[in-house]
């Protein structure tokens, strides 16, 4: 098997959510003296990206996405240990996620959290029905770079506005980037309240957060 075939097999193990094979290939790569970073970037990352695309198209679902992410996590742990200096691949960013106070809907948020974790972000999920003050306190403690809030109801989306106001009042507006989402939320709403980004769906949420962190 040549190198490209091996890397394709690595990517396929992620697409198939085959945790055992993904780990076995990581060990094999080390035994054969391959560059661990190359195997991560051209094998496992390629696989998880394709999993994300398939999830977006509705060809693969949340449990499979999570299993694939878990396979990548375990395999890359093996490879990270072998990387010179023992330096682990750094998380892409620190994101705090919550469903706003008064809103008990958490399925959409769970998908966003899973996708972010699958894409290598360090995520704190505060759950649902979370007051603005608690979100800010936790963001400070965690050292979040991005705060993402979800609201499923027209009656609770005002909490996203309250968060923006509170961040301005506390002089924290520049410290944390904010992303808003949820069924009744639109780009117009995000602009109106001063949020840094709006995401139509979970996949877009990940992309918007990446853009915010790059910007």
């Amino acid at each position: 098997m040549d190198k490209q075939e091996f890397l394709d097999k690595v990517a396929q193990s992620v697409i198939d959510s085959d945790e055992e094979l993904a780990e076995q290939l990581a060990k094999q790569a080390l035994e054969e003296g391959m560059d661990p970073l190359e195997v991560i970037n051209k094998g496992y990352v390629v696989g998880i990206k394709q999993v994300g695309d398939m999830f977006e198209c509705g060809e693969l679902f949340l449990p499979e996405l999570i299993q694939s992410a878990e396979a990548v996590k375990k395999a890359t742990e093996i490879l990270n240990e072998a990387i010179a200096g023992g330096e682990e691949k750094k998380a892409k960013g620190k994101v705090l996620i919550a469903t706003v106070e008064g809103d008990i809907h958490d399925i959409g948020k769970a998908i966003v959290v899973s996708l972010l974790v699958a894409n290598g972000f360090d995520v704190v999920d505060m759950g649902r029905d979370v007051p603005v003050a608690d979100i800010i306190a936790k963001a400070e403690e965690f050292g979040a770079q991005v705060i993402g809030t979800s609201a499923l109801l027209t009656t609770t989306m005002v909490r996203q506005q309250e968060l923006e106001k509170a961040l301005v009042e506390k002089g924290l507006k520049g410290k944390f980037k904010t992303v808003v989402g949820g069924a009744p939320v639109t780009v117009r709403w995000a602009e109106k309240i001063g949020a840094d980004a709006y995401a139509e769906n979970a996949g877009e949420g990940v992309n918007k957060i990446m853009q915010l962190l790059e910007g």
Partner: protein
Amino acid sequence: MVVTRMGDGSFITMTRDEVLRDVEEGVADAVKRGKIEPLSSDEIEHIVDICCRPQKFVSVEKGNELVLTYDSGTLKVTRLGIPIGMPQILQLYERVFGADSLELAYVHYSFKPIKSIVPEEQYAVAETSLVTTAPLLYGAMPNLPLYTKPDGPCENAAELLPMGKIEEAKRAQEEAAEYAIKDMVFVSSGVYEAGADGIDFDTTAAAGDAEFYATLKATEILREKYPDMAIEIGMAGEFVLGFHGSIEYDGVRLAGLYPHKQVGLAEKAGASVFGAVVNTNSSRTFPWNLGRAVTFCKACREAANIPVHANVGMGVGAVPLVMTPPIDCVSRASTAMAEVGKMDGL
């Protein structure tokens, strides 16, 4: 120039060619996602024509009128703060708004909380049926998350899944589905026996495939129990979310089904009417959303042997995502659903 809107309700202007391009792109998106047939060029032209008409309100040609139904009818007037009882609200729907069927609903609108007040709802059903003549449905949402912690006895899959506890999350959803089936059958039986003509399972599958499974099973049980009961299954979105991922009904994996596949299972379970839903993308234009929504709904109608009613309201059926759906879009979406989508009702 054509004055139209974005999916978030804001006004935009487009040329006729731009409208055509967006309708075509919307159709193509539905074709790609649903793996369904595209609209013909004549049908696309018809949608473009509907979008480009200068009138604020447009309508169908004579003879193309549809059956008009409303979900959660009694709640919508109550929300306006008008102090009026449920039977009177439904009289307004029947005699003022031109509704062809009526739906009585409790303010919480979920089966779980209703089970403890069924006798009160039976009274409301009986009272309403004495003062109205249109078919009377009782409506509520399956609302599976109400059976999970902290609101119910089952573990919460939305918490388990991000932790990687996949099998536990699946089991929790299956357990919640069994509770939901019991409540749906119990409440539906109660209101039907009190005089309702049928039941509307509204916003079905909002919590994903396990909720769709529960609704189909409840429908199956009710159909066997009450052969003449009208049962409407109205969906929550265009796509069944794979939150469980592998749950099946009648040998078919429910995750990832689009309306034209959903309707076949609804039919098998015993539904009398299917409410197709296509979500509005608030970042795209109304013509894009309309082309897309009509393509999905037409494919659903063609696959169905039972009547299909398209949902045309806030954030669905191409209608923009705003609190008060704008009449220019609602009337255009309704017209396109009737004349191109060939719906049986709205």
